[in-house]
């Protein structure tokens, strides 16, 4: 309801067609917001869809989003969601990129695209695709791809008393501090692992970290059946090298990414190992952290 009121307040009349974008389409309902220094416009021809898109943006960035009331100013990135017959369509920067009959799937995709757009273009922040916990007052980063057990491990570690920072992004500022991004954990269904449900960290009994922290350790690990946690210590350079594939702005802002990773990893204990059974290896990882984090 509040979102509808805000949109109602912000709505302009027809948005002029932009000549600079060939085949580009704009829609007459629009709002603009900024998150992590990235300005994004949401558009639609339907106020209800725009309202849903706005709510999704709010949750995608955990409320770290500022509406820009002067919508005539140009946003760097534009997303539009419209309904066309029995399907929903997503436009990015004026070009149609996705069609889908399921509204929920289209919005799920839209949420991911929004997040990745901000993660790639954030100002003075480097987003690393990683699980992050707090232990002994320091942050512990677990960079890794999707479906390699990050959330399972984070969930187990917070059950053992670790603070929850994030199961998706380590957000590192330009002084090397890591900020919490405590979205709900995306937990895969035990029966069918590609079915994902979101669970609040609070429901798992976690303490959610609110303040930024220095990185105490970077753990490069992924699940392998029958593997065991046998950490090999890495140098800072090797640790950064292995984190590069998970560093979202590495291509868009290479110099800034490397500089910030260097600052953030400078005092960290960096270790690499495969791991197997999560119950056993979560304890082993915490024992390792106890030994190395003073």
């Amino acid at each position: 309801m509040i979102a509808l009121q805000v949109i109602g307040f912000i709505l302009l009349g027809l948005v002029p067609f932009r000549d600079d974008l060939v085949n580009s389409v704009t829609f007459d309902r629009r709002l603009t917001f900024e998150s992590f220094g990235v300005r994004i416009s949401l558009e639609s021809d339907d106020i209800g869809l725009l309202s849903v898109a706005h709510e999704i943006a709010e949750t995608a960035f955990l409320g770290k989003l500022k509406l820009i009331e002067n919508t005539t100013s140009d946003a760097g990135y534009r997303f539009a969601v419209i309904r066309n017959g029995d399907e929903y369509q997503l436009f990015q920067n004026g070009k149609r990129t996705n069609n889908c009959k399921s509204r929920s799937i289209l919005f799920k995709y839209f949420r991911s695209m929004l997040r990745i757009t901000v993660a790639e273009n954030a100002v003075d922040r480097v987003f690393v695709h990683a699980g992050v916990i707090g232990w002994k007052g320091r942050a512990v980063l677990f960079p890794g791809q999707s479906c390699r057990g990050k959330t399972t491990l984070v969930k187990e570690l917070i059950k053992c008393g670790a603070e929850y920072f994030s199961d998706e992004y380590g957000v590192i500022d330009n002084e090397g501090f890591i900020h919490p991004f405590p979205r709900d954990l995306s937990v895969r269904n035990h029966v069918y692992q590609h079915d994902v449900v979101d669970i609040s960290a609070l429901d798992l009994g976690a303490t959610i970290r609110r303040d930024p922290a220095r990185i105490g350790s970077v753990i490069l690990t992924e699940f392998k059946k029958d593997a065991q946690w046998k950490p090999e210590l890495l140098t800072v350079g090797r640790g950064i090298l292995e984190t590069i594939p998970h560093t979202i702005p590495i291509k868009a802002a290479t110099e800034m990414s490397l500089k910030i990773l260097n600052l953030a990893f400078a005092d960290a204990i960096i270790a690499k190992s495969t791991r197997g059974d999560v119950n056993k290896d979560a304890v082993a990882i915490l024992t390792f952290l106890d030994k190395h984090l003073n």
Partner: protein
Amino acid sequence: MNNPQFPTARNSGLVVQEVPNEILVFDLENNKAHCLNDTAAMVWKSCDGKTSVPEIAKYLEIQTGKGVNDDLVWLAIDQLSENHLLEKTASSPFKGQSRRDVIKKIGLASVIAIPVVASLVAPQSVLANVSCVCTSSTDCGAPGFGTCASLVCCNAAGICAPALPAPNGGCI
């Protein structure tokens, strides 16, 4: 003009970050990242096109206070060349020998760290980190979705993965 005996470090299309005792290099043209250990970094920094391999070996001796032979410098140059970090490909003097054999030989004689250039290919697209969400099966074949559970099926949950066991479970 570049004689491999006077190797020249490449400096265009690279982003260089010095870290303690190492150098990180991101190659924007080849989309690769490299980590040079201390020895490889010292050799790379000495490749100014005017300094010969024996002179680089001497420089390393002065810097480290330890004996360094030409083969150790060549081992570094061989790796730097292979990873396109020199202006021109250097022809390795280790013809017919595997790198392992060369390292074994040098390792026995060397008192400084064997030069190592560790490399990896950076992802082509940030979509690699999108958690495999999709709206149609076409998405799953796009660059960046290579690690998803399926490259051909966007299932009913909107994930590039095999179809869910449910009615209207998306693609089969």
